[in-house]
C-alpha cells in the first residue's frame, strides 16, 4: 500500500506549487525596476527520515521592451519514501514523481510593477493550480516599497488503491475525488533605513477550504482489547484552515564588503498552531577572488494543533483527530553553508556574467509529542520520541544575459 507522508504529500501536492511561484515573483526591493534577465539551472536533493526527494528546477526570466518581464519555471520532484508514517502503517517503500510548470508576467508602469502568475502541479493522485496577482509601488524617493498580492488555488485530491486485476500495481480510485480551495492575501513593506541597512515587513493570511486530510495517513488510538497496543484509523481533519503570519527581516552591509542578515516570523492559525522562526546569517565575498561564502542558522519551534495527538484514547474520542507529525509540538534547527564562484562571460557575447553555486543544509527535527511507533514490541504511548536529521544539497548555475 502506498502511504504518502505529510512530507511527500505537501511536497508533491502543493508545496512546490508555490515554489516556482515564489521564484517567479520579483522581490519588493524596488518596484520601479524590473528583475534582471537570468537563467538558473538547479539540482536539488533532500535525504532524511527515510525519504529521498531530488530533481531539477529551471528558471528563465527575460525583459521585453524594458516594460515587461516574462518568466517560466519547470520543477520536478522524484520521491522515494519509506518514512516513519509508511513504516508504521506496514506499507512498503514507494516512488512517485511530481511535475510543476509556472509562468509569470511583470508589467512596469512608472514606479509600479504589476505581476501575474500561474502554476500547475501534476502527479498521479493530486492536481493543483494557483493563479496570483500582485503589485508593488515605490514611495518616498524610492526609500519605501509597498507590495500586495492575492493568490487563488484549486486542488483536486485523489488516491491510489491496489489494482484488483493486478494486486502488485496501483491505480487511481475512481470513487474518490475531493476538492480544496485556497486563498492567500499578502502585504509587504520594504524600507531603506540607512545607506547600509534595509528592512522588510511582510504579512500573509491564507485560508483553505475543502479536503485537508491526507487520504493515506492514519491516527492511532489505544487498542480496546489490549491497552499496551494501538490500532490505526483514517485521520479526520476540519474542512477549513486560516493562518496568519508576520515576518520582519533586515540586512546590513558591513564596511569591508560583507553582509549580515536576520529575520523573525510569528505564525498562528485556526487549528491552534503557534510557531516562531528566527534566522541569522552572514555573506562574505573574498576580495580580488571570484569566491563568496555564506553561512546561516535557522531555528523553528511550534506548538501542536488542537486536534493532534500521538495516541488517542479511543477511535471516536473527538470530532477531529490527526497524527501528522507536522502538526505536533516540534522544533527544527538548520545550519546552512554555501559557496559561490562567479565567472565572466566565458567568451560568450550574449552572457554578462554567471555563478556556480554549491549549498548544503543540515536540518535536525525534534518532536516533543510524536513517538517512534515502529517497534511493535514497545508499549503504545511509551515509545521514544521521534527525531531525525536531513541533508539538503543544491547545486546550481545562474547566468545573467
Amino acid at each position: 500500500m502506498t502511504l504518502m507522508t505529510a512530507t511527500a504529500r505537501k511536497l508533491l501536492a502543493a508545496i512546490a506549487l508555490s515554489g516556482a511561484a515564489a521564484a517567479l515573483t520579483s522581490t519588493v526591493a524596488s518596484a520601479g525596476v524590473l528583475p534582471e534577465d537570468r537563467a538558473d539551472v538547479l539540482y536539488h536533493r533532500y535525504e532524511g527520515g527515510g525519504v529521498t526527494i531530488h530533481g531539477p528546477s529551471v528558471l528563465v526570466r527575460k525583459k521585453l521592451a524594458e516594460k515587461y518581464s516574462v518568466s517560466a519555471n519547470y520543477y520536478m520532484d522524484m520521491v522515494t519514501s519509506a518514512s516513519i508514517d509508511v513504516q508504521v502503517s506496514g506499507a512498503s517503500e514507494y516512488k512517485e514523481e511530481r511535475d510543476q510548470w509556472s509562468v509569470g508576467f511583470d508589467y512596469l508602469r512608472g514606479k509600479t510593477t504589476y505581476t501575474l502568475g500561474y502554476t500547475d502541479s501534476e502527479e498521479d493522485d493530486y492536481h493543483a493550480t494557483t493563479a496570483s496577482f500582485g503589485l508593488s509601488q515605490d514611495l518616498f524617493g524610492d526609500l519605501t516599497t509597498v507590495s500586495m498580492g492575492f493568490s487563488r488555488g484549486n486542488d483536486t485530491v485523489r488516491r491510489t488503491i491496489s489494482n484488483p486485476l493486478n494486486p502488485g500495481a496501483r491505480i487511481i480510485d475512481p470513487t474518490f475525488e475531493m476538492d480544496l480551495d485556497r486563498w492567500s492575501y499578502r502585504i509587504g513593506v520594504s524600507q531603506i533605513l540607512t545607506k547600509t541597512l534595509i528592512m522588510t515587513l511582510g504579512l500573509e493570511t491564507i485560508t483553505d477550504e475543502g479536503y485537508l486530510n491526507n487520504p493515506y495517513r492514519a491516527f492511532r488510538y489505544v487498542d480496546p482489547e489490549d491497552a499496551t497496543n494501538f490500532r490505526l484509523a483514517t485521520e479526520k481533519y476540519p474542512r477549513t484552515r486560516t493562518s496568519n503570519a508576520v515576518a520582519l527581516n533586515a540586512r546590513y552591509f558591513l564596511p569591508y564588503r560583507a553582509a549580515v542578515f536576520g529575520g523573525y516570523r510569528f505564525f498562528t492559525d485556526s487549528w491552534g498552531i503557534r510557531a516562531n522562526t528566527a534566522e541569522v546569517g552572514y555573506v562574505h565575498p573574498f576580495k580580488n577572488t571570484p569566491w563568496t561564502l555564506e553561512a546561516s542558522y535557522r531555528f523553528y519551534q511550534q506548538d501542536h494543533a488542537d486536534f493532534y495527538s500521538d495516541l488517542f484514547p479511543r477511535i471516536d474520542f473527538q470530532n477531529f483527530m490527526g497524527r501528522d507529525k507536522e502538526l505536533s509540538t516540534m522544533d527544527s534547527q538548520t545550519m546552512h553553508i554555501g559557496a559561490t564562484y562567479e565567472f565572466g562571460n566565458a567568451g560568450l557575447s550574449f552572457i554578462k556574467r554567471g555563478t556556480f553555486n554549491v549549498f548544503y543544509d543540515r536540518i535536525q527535527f525534534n518532536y516533543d509529542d510524536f513517538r517512534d511507533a515502529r517497534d511493535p514490541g514497545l508499549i503504545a504511548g511509551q515509545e521514544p520520541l521521534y527525531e531525525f536529521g536531513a541533508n539538503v544539497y543544491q547545486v546550481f548555475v545562474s547566468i545573467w544575459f
Partner: protein
Amino acid sequence: MRARAAAIVLAAMTLAGCGDLQPWVKPYERQALADPIMSFDANPVSTAYMDHVFEAREGARGALGSAGGGCGCN
C-alpha cells in the same frame, strides 16, 4: 478608549509628518544597498526550494521572503 484616541492622534501626527518627508538616503548613496550581497533574494530558485523544504515539514506557512509573499498552498 483613551488608548485608541492616543493612537489616532499619533497616527495623524505621523502621517502629517510624511508630508514633508524627504529621502534621507539619496540615490547616489545606495551603492552598498545595490550590492548583490544585499539582495534578500539573490538566488530565487534556491530560496523557493528551501522555503518549501521547510514548509513541507513544519506547520507554519506564509510571509516568506522579502516581498512578504509565500503561497496559497496547503
